[in-house]
């Protein structure tokens, strides 16, 4: 099955990929250092980038503050935006990695005419395209599995990923993020008849838990099981390409619980009235738009768009797509006021 294949291929290529990324980064630094003294004011030093995955870093990136590691907003064009604008004809489009399986975030409603994707993330994409290319529909959507979001950016298959992607320190080593545009936290989704009551109360012992491979949920579960805060008997082997595949496994009785972002868990629960979310969100996470680390002008531009979007557009999109699943009150989901890296 796909999940297994992805997992084994990850196991096989993880090391190689990490090494290649390190080499690429080191090379990029050697080449860029002499010329780009100024842009280093953002304080993200080479040391930080070369550290392997971890919770706290030498340079002080803590996951609770990862959302602040972004460049200050600017409307100026740069090499990346110029390249996007230089696309001609049918190719004059922003290439964006999205999800087509997240109910009310990015999905194809089978009951609407045409093949349009729709949802909260998709609204934001249209807004970005409108701003950069002057046409909200100048977008080429690419569906990306959870585990491929980062490689898709690094390989240049997409200009950006707008796909319920949590900003973390580990991911900051590989891609750049915009300021946060949504706040959520991991939650547990179970059938209503389940005895599971929450995440940290030990009721997940002996349960089979499904996560999307490469998701923050999976990494959290793995880390917690090693630390012992998640019972060792919890079976977290089921890692699927997409969080929605977890709903399939849950309904087929192949797993007992799903752990994913509360925002997505609510979307799953909305598709099956026999499921419920249990316990409070046990993490705090922020969604950001992910871009190539070198696309500094694009990051700044998206941050400027987000400032405008928060003021006009965000609430309307929330009301349209998410109020039904996450509640009329949007305050728990609102992103914090953005902090940018000092000089910018």
């Amino acid at each position, binding site marked *: 099955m796909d999940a297994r294949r992805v997992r084994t291929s990850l196991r096989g290529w993880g090391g190689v990929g990490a090494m290649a990324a390190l080499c690429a980064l080191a090379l990029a630094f050697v080449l860029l250092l002499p010329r780009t003294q100024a842009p280093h004011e953002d304080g993200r030093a080479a040391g930080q980038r070369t550290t392997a995955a971890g919770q706290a870093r030498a340079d002080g990136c803590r996951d609770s503050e990862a959302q602040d590691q972004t460049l200050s907003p600017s409307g100026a064009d740069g090499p990346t935006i110029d390249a996007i604008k230089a696309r001609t004809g049918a*190719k004059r489009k922003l290439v964006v990695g999205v999800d087509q399986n997240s109910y009310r975030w990015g999905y194809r409603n*089978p009951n609407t005419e045409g093949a349009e994707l729709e949802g909260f993330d998709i609204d934001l994409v249209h807004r970005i395209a409108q701003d950069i290319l002057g046409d909200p529909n100048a*977008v080429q959507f690419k569906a990306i599995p959870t585990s491929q979001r980062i490689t898709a950016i690094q390989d240049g298959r997409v200009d950006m990923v707008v796909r319920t992607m949590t900003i973390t320190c580990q991911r900051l080593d590989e891609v750049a993020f915009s300021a946060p545009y949504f706040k959520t936290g991991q939650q547990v989704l179970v059938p209503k008849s389940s005895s599971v009551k929450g995440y940290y109360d030990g009721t997940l012992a002996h349960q089979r838990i499904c996560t999307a491979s490469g998701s923050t949920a999976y990494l959290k579960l793995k880390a917690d099981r090693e630390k012992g805060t998640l019972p060792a008997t919890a079976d977290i082997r089921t890692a699927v390409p997409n969080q929605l595949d977890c709903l399939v496994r849950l309904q087929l009785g192949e797993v007992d619980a799903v752990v994913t972002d509360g925002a997505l868990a609510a979307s799953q629960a909305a*598709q099956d009235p026999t499921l419920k979310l249990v316990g409070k969100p046990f993490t705090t996470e922020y969604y950001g738009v992910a871009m190539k680390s070198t696309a500094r002008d694009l990051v700044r531009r998206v941050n400027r768009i987000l400032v405008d979007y928060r003021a006009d557009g965000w609430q309307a999109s929330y009301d349209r797509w998410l109020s039904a699943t996450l509640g009329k009150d949007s305050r728990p989901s609102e992103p914090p006021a953005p902090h940018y890296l000092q000089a910018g």
Partner: protein
Amino acid sequence: MTHPPKGSAAPPGAGPALPALPAVPPQPGPPAARPAPPAARRSAFAEGAERVRAAATTEPGRLRIIGAVLALLVVAFGSVTAWQTSERAAAADDVLHRSQPLSSGAAGIYRSLADANTTASSGFLAGGQETAASRDRYEEDIRTAAAGLVTAAANAEPGSSSEATIARLNRLLPEYKGLIERARTYNRQGYPVGGAYLRYANDKMQNKMLPAAEDLYTKENQRLDADYGHATPYPWAAIALGVLALAALGWAQHRTYRRTNRVLNHGLAAATVATTAALLWLVVGHTLARSGLDGSYDHGIRSMKVLHDARIASLKARGNENLSLVSRGAETITVGGQQYDTYYYHFDRNITALGKGLTQATRLADDRAGSGPVKAAEGNMAVWKQRHAAARAEDENGNYQQALDKVIGGKDATGACFDSVDRNLAHAIDHEQTEFRQTAGDGRDALTGLPVGAAVLAALAAAGALAGIGRRLSEYR
């Protein structure tokens, strides 16, 4: 000319000279002139050998031995012929009525399953709810596959690996159908989890069911080849015995001529004629059967294999074409340092295989009726390739809806080309099937009556040989 004093049915070697002795079969060698009473009890074999040696010293004794050997040779020839030809006839029968239909059936199972899956994914791609036509096609495919599995199961050897494969497919089919039904239900409610079910079902089909069906097809083809292998080899043992019997008859007649100066011994001559007839029948009949069967393999089976493989390649290509749009670039594959969309990459390979298959099928087709549909399919494929290139260009430019229209839209979409390829290949397969049945049937018919006929002729020849020798023996009264 004295009349042989024994009835034609009288047991062979019991010469009229010694009616007192029990009428034993020829082999033990009738104790001709002097039946020396055994002095002491010896083994039966030694006793028999002693008697034969004793018998060989006189002419009547020798004649009896010669008669026995001749009869024995002719009877052996007849029975080996009957045995070997009936074995070949049975194998030819299996080719015609069992293994070839089963091999075709296995290809049919594969086709139905793949087509059902492709139809289901097209329905999903189209968005909205599936049309009545696509639902009917899907249901029809599932029914065909289920019926094919029943036939295959009824003909599988108990405990064979084919049986295990069929059981696995039988188990997976309702699972698959269940997933598709769930996908339909959720689709109707507008929930994307319907799409997730479809992906899960597709996974099951691609990674478990189709490989099993392909495995079954391979095994049935092996069985078909094995049946051909049993039906066509020359019956060397029978032919050798026939030649030996003829040689012995000839020698016996030559010996008679030398001793009596009589040219014709009626019995022996009749035996020679009968044996020659049986041998000719054997050689000619088998050669005809063999050429029929070989022809049915070369012109039917080989073409059909190529056509089935081409059809499967075209189905796979269609499936991958659809999936590339379902997955929307989610899956990539790196080949030779170059990154490709997984499904587009496989589509290109499938289409290449289809092209090669069609070229080969044209070469193998031996008449216009056979090559016509293949040529037409080649034309359809060329259009398909063009339209696919256009659709892919749209997709790569991000015009998803336009790409979709070019793939699953109406009669100008690639779907229409695929359907035409499939239909034409079905015609071609039908034609080859008819041709196969005809040639293999002719081959099979060439063996009709041969086992029984050979046995009867051999019996006649044996009787003739004994009568001929008996005629000579009677001169020693």
